[in-house]
């Protein structure tokens, strides 16, 4: 189980932040603290202001009101490029430069802080290895010689190699097929666990949100509706906007989860905590209360938290 309670000073803090385009708010009165080391996922429907929020962190977009601080200092007091050198960025389609090799692409963020491509090579190579790309085979390839998943792995290496304090990712896996998406999700989870680099991750994919986030911010029409751990969101949605996203299956019962095959067999000696007639909200509560995050439903059918989240995510689609 990952550490969901990193109690440290906020690394990034939004205070009363607005971003308006011609009097139309893309983001309105945003107050948000992102702590060092957490895996923060911003989720919401299309046009809800996720990208706008993300890009205000590295000043690709400037807010029209309010303040944003990074490591305690207002963004506007820092040199833009110095700031950006501390913030990694992964774009949706990888955004690798077609005229540069994998090495040159990945070394770019180090070039930005004065490290030559030649000197960057060992670091790039070891990170490539870490994300599952054999350096000997991949260093000198061009982006068009890579699959979409491989391109995105290089995109991640490029963001990581300069050792930034935080990495921003805007729907990095949305263009990938389900298998590659799953692999890359595992990869970033792994990297996050190892390095504890702060990650701010934007997606509109519920499965992804629940799999990745240690904390989740839900956006709706420019407003940040709720920020909580995944299980809390499922259990206690603040309003209908949030519950719509997370509990669309309201009225569904535990039997639906069983029927869709989201259970394991075993633990026949425990007493069932929920019955198949109970609601999903009851199930979520039971999962929160359960010491091992798993509940016995029938004689030998167990629903774990992971299976439940997976079911919820898949029902979204």
């Amino acid at each position: 189980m990952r550490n969901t309670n990193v109690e440290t000073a906020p690394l990034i803090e939004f205070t009363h932040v607005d971003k308006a385009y011609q009097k139309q708010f893309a983001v309105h009165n945003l107050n948000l603290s992102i702590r060092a080391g957490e895996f923060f996922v911003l989720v919401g429907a299309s046009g809800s202001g996720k990208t706008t929020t993300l890009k205000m962190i590295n000043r690709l977009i400037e807010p029209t009101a309010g303040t944003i601080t990074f490591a305690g200092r207002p963004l506007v007091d820092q040199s833009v490029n110095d700031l950006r050198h501390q913030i990694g960025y992964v774009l949706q389609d990888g955004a690798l430069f077609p005229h540069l090799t994998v090495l040159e692409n990945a070394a770019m963020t180090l070039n930005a802080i004065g490290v030559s491509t030649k000197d960057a090579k060992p670091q790039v190579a070891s990170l490539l290895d870490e994300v599952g790309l054999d350096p000997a085979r991949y260093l000198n390839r061009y982006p068009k010689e890579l699959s979409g998943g491989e391109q995105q792995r290089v995109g991640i290496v490029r963001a990581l190699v300069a050792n930034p304090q935080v990495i921003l990712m805007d729907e990095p896996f949305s263009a990938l097929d389900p298998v590659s998406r799953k692999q890359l999700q595992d990869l970033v989870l792994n990297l996050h666990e190892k390095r504890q680099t702060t990650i701010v991750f934007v997606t509109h994919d519920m499965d992804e949100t629940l799999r990745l986030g240690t904390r989740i911010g839900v956006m709706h029409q420019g407003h940040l509706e709720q920020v909580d751990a995944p299980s809390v969101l499922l259990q206690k949605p603040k309003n209908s906007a949030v519950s719509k996203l997370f509990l669309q299956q309201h009225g569904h019962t535990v039997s639906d989860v069983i029927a869709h095959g989201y259970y394991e067999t075993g633990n026949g000696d425990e007493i069932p905590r929920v019955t198949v007639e109970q609601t999903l909200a009851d199930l979520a509560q039971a999962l929160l209360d359960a010491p091992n995050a798993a509940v016995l439903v029938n004689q030998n059918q167990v629903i774990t938290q992971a299976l439940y989240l997976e079911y919820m995510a898949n029902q979204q689609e």
Partner: protein
Amino acid sequence: MTSFINFIQAQGDTLRNALFTHIGLSLVSVALAMLIAIPLAIALMNHPRLGEVMLQITGVIQTIPSLAILGLLIPIVGIGTVPAIIALVLYALMPIFQNTYAGLTQIDANLLEAADAFGLSWWYKLFKIRLPLALPLIFSGIRIALVLVIGTATLASLIGGGGLGTFIMQGIQNNNNTELLVGAVCSAALAIIFSIGLRLLSHLSLKKLALVIGLLIVGLGGAFGFQAYQQQQHQEVVIAGKLGGEPEILMNMYRELIQQENPKLKVTLKPNFGNTTFIFRALQNKQVDIYPEFTGTVLQNLYPEKLKSHNPAQVYQQAHQVIQEKSDLTYLKPMAYENRYALAVDQQTAKRYHLKTVSDLARVSPQLSAAFENDFYHQQDGYQGLKRKYQLHFKNVKSMEPSLRYEALKNHQVQVVDAYTTDPQIKVQKLVVLKDDLAFFPPYQGAPLVRNELIKRHPEIQKSLNRLHNRISESEMIEMNYKVTVKHEKAQRVAHEYLKSYRLIR
């Protein structure tokens, strides 16, 4: 084909020089255009409005006829290489600017966003990202410009800039298809070779490319600068001439005559100006001191006036006077020969019908067919007026390209053609020139047109040049033209031999 090879053998040196000049002109022009257009496109890439305006401007420049640009440039920068390069640079701007601008502005927005997000410097983004990504388009712009410029550079010959255009213009002038073809084929071949060369270069990295281009600019710039510097240093008297062998022969005579009296005077020749207006402008603007001009041209083109008579001496007097009154020039004494329109027939026809004059021809004209050059056919002072004056009624009259009419005559499709009285074809095809017994055609006598300032500085030049007064008969001029334009002898030698044989020089 054999004539092609013969020509290249005979004119090898001239051709090589012309090729070198042509390549030099083209490369320097494109290089300068790159130096202007690429930085400009970089400066404007983030200012779409200004960029649009600039696209329009370069597009408009492109639509200005090249002759107009050359004409406008002569009073400002003179003649020769400089105005030619300026005009070519102006033409090369558009494709290079347009492609560079498009290349720089049409880069995937995601890539630019990524580059921004990584906190890369402006220079890094320009040289490592924007320019390399735009490079294929920039290259194709340069290639388009180069092909365009190599084609347009043929116009440089109009203002004494040299190059392959000289061959093309001379070919047209002399009805010499071989010469014309050599010029055209070389220019086309150059365009193709450079286009392929550039395509090969486009595979080089940006660094190597910059090196190649840098070396090219330094080398060519140096060579041209040196040449221009040398010219500037020594020019004392500049003699120019229109396109063709005849003016070149005369220019060489002028030089020898002047240097006989004045051996220390540096005399520069600028042959092959394509166009009366340009050479006259150059004279007025003091880039040229002397050039041979015809009395008829003075009174019909330079200072148009109605001819008071068709008597050669009186026409010369009239031209002399108008030059004296209206310009800062002096029209020195004319030579003997006239180079004007005439009708000619082949010997067979002349013998058969006993033809000596145009009046003779008029009698038998209903039995004969004629072919005339397009201009001559349509002009009032050409065939249209002549027909009325002499009551000509040919069985059949065609207007055609200059060289074709001689072919038609050779093949006996026609018996009568128009000709210039000093046309070497008269000798080649053994034509009989019919006397204009009613004096219909205005006389065209050649004489040096000289800037007064030069005469004031070197009064003896007047005497030197007047040695040609009443010299050179039509048959002598035909003979000399034949040697230069058909036999490809050096104009300098032909001129020298003539002067020598009449003891005009020691």
